[in-house]
């Protein structure tokens, strides 16, 4: 029981504060969610630490690691990151050409950020997948991160209004009864409008198998942050502080367009 006590205390101390206002999100937003045209295969990725819905920034220290997983291999992209400023806050970006078919999953592991007001560290393992040239096999395969959301709905083919399901893993095991915070990112320079502050961040909980479901009410980028505490502690000013572990996944929901009339003579399979 004594093992769980610090976890419980940290949950009480740390997580409720995150609920009170808009949530912190590690952000990893690519310029394209899917690449089918080689002329658009040069992807820009923006990395930041943000309140997505409100478009309010925080400084993102140079990440501890930044990698891309593709066709069974990984590539370290940390050295490619370029520092920049947005709203006066430190952000990072890079470009990467997607030069072969397959799923490219980008993962950022930030350095732990100490939030004084919450008296805990925040560490969000952030990932996003890009389907290149029609091949996204492996989208439901865990990468083996400390904590991660493994999609159970194919992220490369989601319309607004579809159910998105995911499984939260913590140290490789399903994380039951875990809160998953969800925010819409309206885009750079845009702020979402909510009826009241309590509706900026939505929250769902995982079931006994670590599975959650959510229906995005409109198209755009949506961030899912599954928050856990496995008892990890980090020192701050001579004291051990809890660490909020976040498994963050960014998913793009698309608008279902109106159909177009196809002349019968041209009728071929898509």
């Amino acid at each position: 029981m004594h093992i769980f006590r610090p976890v419980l205390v940290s949950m009480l101390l740390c997580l409720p504060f995150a609920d009170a206002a808009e949530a912190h999100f590690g952000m990893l937003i690519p310029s394209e969610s899917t690449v089918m045209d080689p002329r658009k295969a040069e992807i820009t990725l923006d990395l930041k630490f943000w309140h997505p819905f409100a478009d309010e920034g925080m400084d993102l220290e140079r990440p501890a690691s930044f990698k891309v997983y593709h066709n069974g291999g990984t590539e370290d992209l940390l050295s490619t990151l370029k520092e920049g400023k947005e709203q006066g806050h430190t952000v990072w970006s890079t470009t990467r050409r997607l030069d072969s078919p397959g799923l490219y999953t980008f993962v950022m592991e930030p350095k732990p950020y100490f939030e004084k007001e919450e008296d805990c560290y925040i560490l969000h393992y952030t990932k996003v997948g890009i389907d290149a040239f029609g091949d996204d096999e492996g989208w439901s395969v865990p990468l083996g991160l400390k904590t991660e959301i493994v999609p159970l709905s194919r992220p490369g083919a989601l319309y607004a209004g579809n159910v998105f399901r995911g499984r939260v893993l913590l140290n490789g095991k399903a994380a039951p009864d875990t809160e998953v915070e969800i925010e819409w990112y309206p885009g750079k320079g845009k702020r979402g409008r909510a009826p009241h502050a309590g509706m900026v961040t939505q929250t769902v909980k995982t079931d006994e198998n670590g599975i959650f479901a959510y229906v995005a009410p409109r198209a755009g980028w949506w961030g899912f942050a599954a928050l856990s505490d496995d008892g990890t502690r980090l020192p701050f000013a001579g004291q051990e502080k809890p660490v909020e572990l976040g498994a963050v996944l960014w998913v793009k929901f698309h608008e279902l367009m109106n159909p177009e009339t196809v002349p019968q003579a041209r009728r071929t399979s898509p």
Partner: protein
Amino acid sequence: MQAHNAQAADRRPTRRRAPGPALLLFLSLLFSGAAVTRASAHAVFIYARPDGERICTESWFSKKVRVQGGEVSMEDAQGKLLANGVTDEAGVVCFPVPAGGGDLRFIVRAGQGHRAEFLLPATVGAAPAERPEVPAGASRSGAASEKAGDNPAYGIVPAPSGSDGPALRDIIGGAGWLVGLAGIGAFAASRRKRD
């Protein structure tokens, strides 16, 4: 009670005969369905990239299911046919780089109405070559690509003779249809006999 028994007795012979055609119908659906599902459940994709003096295409339904024996056409930006090829067991077929540059369109036809296109812009065509990734145990280029390389005029490349035959799933699907038709015939015959 007697009437009831008589009705039941009347139904019995029909019930005994019915399972034969029904079973055949079921089997036919099972066979033909299995053959069709594999092709129609997946969209087909094609990707092209420069590979030294050639442009190589790969076509697939999935990472494991490549388009084998699929027809691939290379057209210029105006839609003029420059070359044809047939994919090998890894879904790959290569073409010589046509003279004149410009955008190139590659079209794969993979049966059952499966068709996909890929536009290779001229700007991308000048990019460094990278070999297509193919599954272990599969070769990177087949007979068609060798023939394409042998053709200095980059003209129409004849399909290899080995690819003209039906694929295994076509054979199984055809057998399913035959069994199904036989089932329908047997069912109709049984109805006629009963009447």
